[in-house]
């Protein structure tokens, strides 16, 4: 597993030309919205980089994040990056099994203490640690142990970043994201269900180049990929502006590719790079294939009031809540009205008429 060759050596041994390598660096720079002046710096940093040790831990997850990563077609940037990092531990991808797996992880952690990059996918159940264990070790314990020697942590996928599907109401396992447990390490969130492969590798490339995590937004996501929302970059946006919406999935509007807002698209509040990087080698992305954005890179996307309800609709039953208000208002209103009327009637009854004689009498005495 130990490999002292630099990245440049490895790339050359794989028959990748200098030109190809620089092209990759330029793509990486543009992907991360860096200036072209940074390309030589990226090239230099990557050329001299030793294969960094990466430990990948999977907790309460569906392996979709790993599936996403492995679906990147060879020989793409994603493949290059993963050929040149040392993925020392990954339950799904590693050939070893049983105790050998644990040993590989312990060895990698010991050898690269303080330097390895820890990638986590999946949430951590704290309701009862026994809900998810690997080789008898709870996810919570394993994360704490692996985080100690990590240089930084990358939370891949919405489960690790924000709790994701296991965190959805009623959260039976008491699932929490990585940030709830680890407080003393730099953590970057790469959410998505699953995340876009180039976003994962882009973050790794940035870490290799600059030795630190990139600029992040309020939710700990790299600004380069999560700085803009889907709605702003959506090719269907002009239809939104014109007020042209698909009302159902098979009407004329849908066939003409009109805006999917009314069908529940969460694009306006979803920050991700799908609209620009697309999926499957730039083939398509959810909105292009005719389905609204689910908002999968946002916290609580599962509980955002239904995938097929428009974003501007409430998550509660307004008619029902209004009925409560109506009933209470009517009851108290009738009572208050009746009270006022009875007061008025009482005042009228008790009204004493006064004659001029009475007044004169009063004045005399």
């Amino acid at each position: 597993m130990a490999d002292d060759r630099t990245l440049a050596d490895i790339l050359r041994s794989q028959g990748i030309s200098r030109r190809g390598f620089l092209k990759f660096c330029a793509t990486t720079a543009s992907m991360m919205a860096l200036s072209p002046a940074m390309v030589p710096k990226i090239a230099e940093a990557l050329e001299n980089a030793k294969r960094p040790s990466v430990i990948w831990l999977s907790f309460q997850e569906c392996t979709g994040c790993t599936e996403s990563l492995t679906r990147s077609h060879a020989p793409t940037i994603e493949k290059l990056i993963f050929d040149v990092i040392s993925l020392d531990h990954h339950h799904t991808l590693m050939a070893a099994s049983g105790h050998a797996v644990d040993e590989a992880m312990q060895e990698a952690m010991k050898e690269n203490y303080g330097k390895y990059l820890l990638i986590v996918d999946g949430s951590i159940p704290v309701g009862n640690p026994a809900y998810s264990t690997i080789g008898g070790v709870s996810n919570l314990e394993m994360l704490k142990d692996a985080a100690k020697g990590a240089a930084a942590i990358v939370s891949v996928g919405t489960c690790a970043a924000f709790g994701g599907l296991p965190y959805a109401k009623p959260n039976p396992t008491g699932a929490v994201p990585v940030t709830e447990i680890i407080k003393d390490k730099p953590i970057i969130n790469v959410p998505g269900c699953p995340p876009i492969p180039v976003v994962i590798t882009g973050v790794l490339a940035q870490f290799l180049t600059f030795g630190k995590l990139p600029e992040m937004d309020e939710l700990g996501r790299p600004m380069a990929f999560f700085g803009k929302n889907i709605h702003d970059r959506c090719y269907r946006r002009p239809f939104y502006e014109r007020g042209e919406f698909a009302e159902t999935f098979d009407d004329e509007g849908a066939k003409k590719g009109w805006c999917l807002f009314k069908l529940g698209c969460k694009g306006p509040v979803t920050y991700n790079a799908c609209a620009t990087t697309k999926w499957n080698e730039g083939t398509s992305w959810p909105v292009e294939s005719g389905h609204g954005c689910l908002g999968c890179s946002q916290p609580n996307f599962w509980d955002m009031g239904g995938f097929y309800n428009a974003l501007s609709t409430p998550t509660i039953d307004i008619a029902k809540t209004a009925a409560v208000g109506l009933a209470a208002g009517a009851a108290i209103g009738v009572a208050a009205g009746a009270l006022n009327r009875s007061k008025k009637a009482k005042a009228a009854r008790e009204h004493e008429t006064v004659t001029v004689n009475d007044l004169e009498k009063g004045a005399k005495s």
Partner: protein
Amino acid sequence: MNSMDFLLWVRGPGLAIASIIFVFGMTLRMFEIFMLGRKKNLAELRSSGVKEGFRTIITRSGGVDTYTTKRTMFTHISGWVFHLGMFTAIFLLAPHIELFKSFLGFGWPALPTAIVDLATVIALITLLAILFHRLTSPVMRFLSVGQDYVVWALTFLPLLTGYMTYHHLFFPYTWLLGIHILSICVLLVVFPFTKLTHAVTVFTSRWYNGYMAGQKGVKQ
């Protein structure tokens, strides 16, 4: 609390609380107002007053009574312009129509966002002019109480935050949308207990004025 938690709160529990208070308050006020009743009119009626009532709804809404219209030209024009701009923003923006559809069960066609945007800008500018007029006109200033300024601000904020949300000004969209919905929640809570109730009572009170006046006098 992150932006998504905030947005979920205002779209869910926050809106529920606000709409319960709004509906409760409005129902209470309407019962109180309409159950008050009037003293029995012992005089012979000149007419039933119903027709005069409807006529007053129109005349008091401007245009017919030229003397009053001329005297308060600014109030008339700004009032109309602001209200029309605001109604366009509320009722003709597609996301808003979806909201109404979610509890009414039916929707209606929307206007392109550029037109709604223009209407919002017009409403905002007119509201600023209205505030300026209130502050600079000695009569208006004398007649104004604290509530008038509160009500002005609560009407201005949803329009302003809506405009900011659409144009993604200064803050991320998610925060802006949450703030926009929150500003409406606040408006709903305050609505039944301030002059804002005129939205419901304006035509009934105008009708009632005409109705009362129509009954008075002697038949020709």
